[in-house]
Each structure stands twice: as structure tokens, then as C-alpha cells.
């Protein structure tokens, strides 16, 4: 037993040493994409209408259309990688994806680890609950249970503003969060407007409605830290698509409303 503990400790030290060695990669994502004629883009499949699986089992939605738009402007093929809210940033950090187009909001914590290109679509997060429940301010949440997707923007926002005695139950992906709310395991749900719209439409018996705004946060395209060439190229494509009305068309098609004024 002692011997095996010693071995474990030794292995631990070895791993730590391995981890602290600095690994330096050249910042050449754009070059690689153009050389291999392939761009890997992380997209959601649990987030209608931004990204979901259609009747043909293929991913579709606003984010997928945006990904295809960027790939076609770059004149390369696109490989779509389905990700969840919780793992989309690790996919970018580990270079398993070149871009993340997955309803990614911008905040200082995220800006520390990845870079952001332009915004491409509007978005807001809010708390939703059945009509019979009186929720006028965040103080009214006290003692209640709220389902939220772990690591998503609404998780961070809710954690910041909710009173200490709110029971925040965090789930791995939006499907589980919605399932918890719909099955009555939680009294409320904090989620993006589009997810909520779907929940309300498909479960009229719950009578859920909009209660409190958590954050207005347009979606940005995520780029790995320091990949400036790729980021500027994406900015250029998005800016052109805004002018030509391509992005406005996507917003009308999937969200049924104008994209409004998006930050660069």
C-alpha cells in the first residue's frame, strides 16, 4: 500500500512537471485552414433555433448557416463539430475547433482565455416561470429552485444576482435543464430567449412566461487566443455580410426579427 502511494506521488510530480512546461505554437490557424481547405467550426445542436438536429438528423440553425457562410467566403470546406455550452471553450483552447459559433456571449472571464471576433446575432437571457408565480425582482427568487445550464452565461449572471438561498440546480446541457423544468423538478428556468420560446410553445400546460432579464448579450464568434489573422479575416467577412444583408436575412429566417444594432 505504502509503495503504491509512493508511486502515485511520483507520477503526480511527473505530471505537474509535464504540465508546467511551456508549449509554444505558432499562430497560424488561418494559414492551416487555407492550406488544408478545411475549417473546423464548433456549433450547438441543443439550442434551437441557433443549432439543433433537423428531421434529416443533420445539424441546422442560425449558427450552422453562419458557419457555412464563413466557410464559403473563405472558399474552404466546413467540418461542423457539435459542442455543448460547457465544453465549447475547451474545444477552442485545445484547437479541436478553429472557430466557435455557438451562441457564445462575451464577458471578461472568457476574454481572458479566448479572443472574440464580431457579433453575428442578437440574444438575451432571462428567468422564466409559470404565470401563477409572482416574480417581480431577484429577491422574489429566494427559497425557490431554478434550473440552469452549467457554464452558460445565464449561470454566471444568475449566480451573481440571485439571493444566497436560491437553489440553483446546474445541468450539463440545455436538454437536461429543460427536462428538469418541464418535469417539475425545478420551479423556474434561467435560459436564453430562444430556448424559452421553444419550451413555452411545446409545453402550454406549464404556462411559463418571461419574468426577469438577466443579460442582453449578442452572440460573438470565438477564436483561439492570439489567432489574430483568423480573427481579422472573420471580422472582415461578418462586416461584409452585415452590409450585404446576408446576416439580416439569417436573423429574419431563424429568429423572426431584425438583428438590430450589433457591436463589432
Amino acid at each position: 500500500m505504502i509503495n503504491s502511494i509512493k508511486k502515485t506521488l511520483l507520477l503526480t510530480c511527473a505530471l505537474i512537471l509535464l504540465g508546467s512546461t511551456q508549449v509554444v505554437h505558432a499562430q497560424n490557424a488561418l494559414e492551416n485552414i487555407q492550406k488544408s481547405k478545411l475549417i473546423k467550426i464548433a456549433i450547438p445542436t441543443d439550442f434551437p433555433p441557433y443549432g439543433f438536429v433537423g428531421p434529416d438528423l443533420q445539424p441546422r440553425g442560425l449558427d450552422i448557416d453562419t458557419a457555412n457562410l464563413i466557410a464559403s467566403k473563405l472558399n474552404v470546406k466546413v467540418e461542423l463539430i457539435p459542442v455543448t455550452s460547457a465544453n465549447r471553450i475547451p474545444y477552442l483552447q485545445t484547437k479541436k475547433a478553429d472557430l466557435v459559433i455557438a451562441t457564445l456571449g462575451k464577458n471578461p472571464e472568457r476574454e481572458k482565455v479566448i479572443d472574440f471576433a464580431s457579433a453575428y446575432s442578437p440574444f438575451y437571457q432571462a428567468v422564466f416561470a409559470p404565470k401563477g408565480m409572482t416574480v417581480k425582482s431577484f429577491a422574489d427568487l429566494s427559497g425557490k429552485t431554478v434550473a440552469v445550464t452549467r457554464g452558460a452565461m445565464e449561470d454566471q449572471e444568475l449566480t451573481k444576482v440571485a439571493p444566497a438561498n436560491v437553489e440553483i440546480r446546474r445541468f450539463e446541457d440545455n436538454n437536461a435543464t429543460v427536462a428538469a423544468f418541464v418535469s417539475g423538478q425545478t420551479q423556474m428556468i434561467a435560459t436564453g430567449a430562444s430556448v424559452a420560446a421553444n419550451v413555452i410553445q411545446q409545453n402550454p400546460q406549464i404556462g411559463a412566461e418571461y419574468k426577469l432579464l438577466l443579460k442582453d448579450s449578442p452572440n460573438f464568434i470565438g477564436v483561439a487566443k492570439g489567432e489574430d489573422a483568423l480573427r481579422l479575416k472573420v471580422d472582415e467577412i461578418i462586416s461584409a455580410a452585415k452590409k450585404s444583408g446576408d446576416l439580416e436575412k439569417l436573423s429574419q429566417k431563424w429568429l423572426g426579427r431584425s438583428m438590430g444594432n450589433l457591436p463589432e
Partner: protein
Amino acid sequence: MNVQLDLGAVLAEWPLLVKGIFLTTFMIVVSGLLGIVLGCVLAWMNTQSRKFQMVIASVYIEVIRNTPFIVQLFFIFFGLPSLGVKLSPLAASMLAMTINLSAYSAEILRAGIESIPKGQLQAAKSLALQPLQTYTNIVLPQAFKNTWPALVSQIVIVMLGSSVCAQISTEELSYAANLIQSRNFRAFEAFFVATLAYLGLSLILRTFLDKAIARLIFKSTHG
């Protein structure tokens, strides 16, 4: 990309980790006890000549052993509310772990029960012991002794498998690691710490069951 190990960022969230470790331990203690007890009952039913009991026990054992733990967990947490049974995440997790462990331990105990010579059963019968008395006084202690290492392994497997309970928002160790990871994006460090914690918990649990508990429950049979 520069990779630098920053364990401090993860350890700064120590209250979450401590709570996670505590809950993981609590869950395995409760469901370990209940699971083994239920396993004994199932193993008993399974050895009965009465068809009805045997069929119930073997259907239960086969259904649980041939379906994934996460599906059982989701069924209890997301499925049962539509039948009017609403359990908290912690209760649902412990129920799923207990059910899972009971089916496996019943099957492990069956091997121990079958290893007992028929002569002992005949001797018990000739001494006018009731079947249940024979089971609890003669069969079960020996079956436990013979299969204890396998049972210990199964309990440890269930404890490690409890990491899945994070999926229904039970705030155990994996949940803590995932939450920390999603707050500061230190995935390697968060899961590294969680790995060490699980390793420690397993070693402690295994040693505890192998040494302390084994001595306690086998004392009477050793003489």
C-alpha cells in the same frame, strides 16, 4: 498556445470541492449499506423454489444489470415526476445507486451461496432450522466471506460511477470539478484535483472495507 499549470485557481474554490467530497462519501455510505442489504434480500428470493419470488428477483436483477446506470438515473429523476414521484437530486442519486448496487451484489452473492456444500443445508434441515434461519445464520455469513473482495470492488465501482450523478445537478465531486472548470476554464487542473480526490476516496474506502469492516463482520464466523 501557452499552457501553464495553475492549481491555485482550482484550490481557491476549495469549499465546493470539500462539499463535493463530502456528498460523494455520504452517497456511497448510504447506498452502499442499503444496496448490500437489498442485495441479500434479492439473493434470498433468487434461491427460493417458489416461482413467483424467483421470477421477480431475476427480472429485477437482469433489468438493472443490462441497462446503463445513467439511464436508470434519468428515469428516476426526469421520468418519475410524470408519475407524481418527485425526488430531490440527492435522493434520486442515492436511490439509483442503491438499486444498481443491489442487483450486482445479489448476483455476486449468488456465487457465494452456490459455493456452499449441499450437505450443510441438509444438516440444517435435519436440525429443524427454518429456511430463513438457515439463510441468515449459515448460508449468508459464508457467502459474504467468500465473495467479500468482489463486493468491495463493486461498492468502489458504484462510488466512482456516482460521478454521473452530476448530470442531474447532484453537487458531488464531479459536479464541483465541472463547475470550477466552467468558471475559470482550468479544465486540466480541475479534473486533475478531482482525479486525486477520487483516487484517495477509493483507496480509503477499499482499505476500510477490506480491513475494518471485514474484521467486524467475519469475527463471529471465524470463531
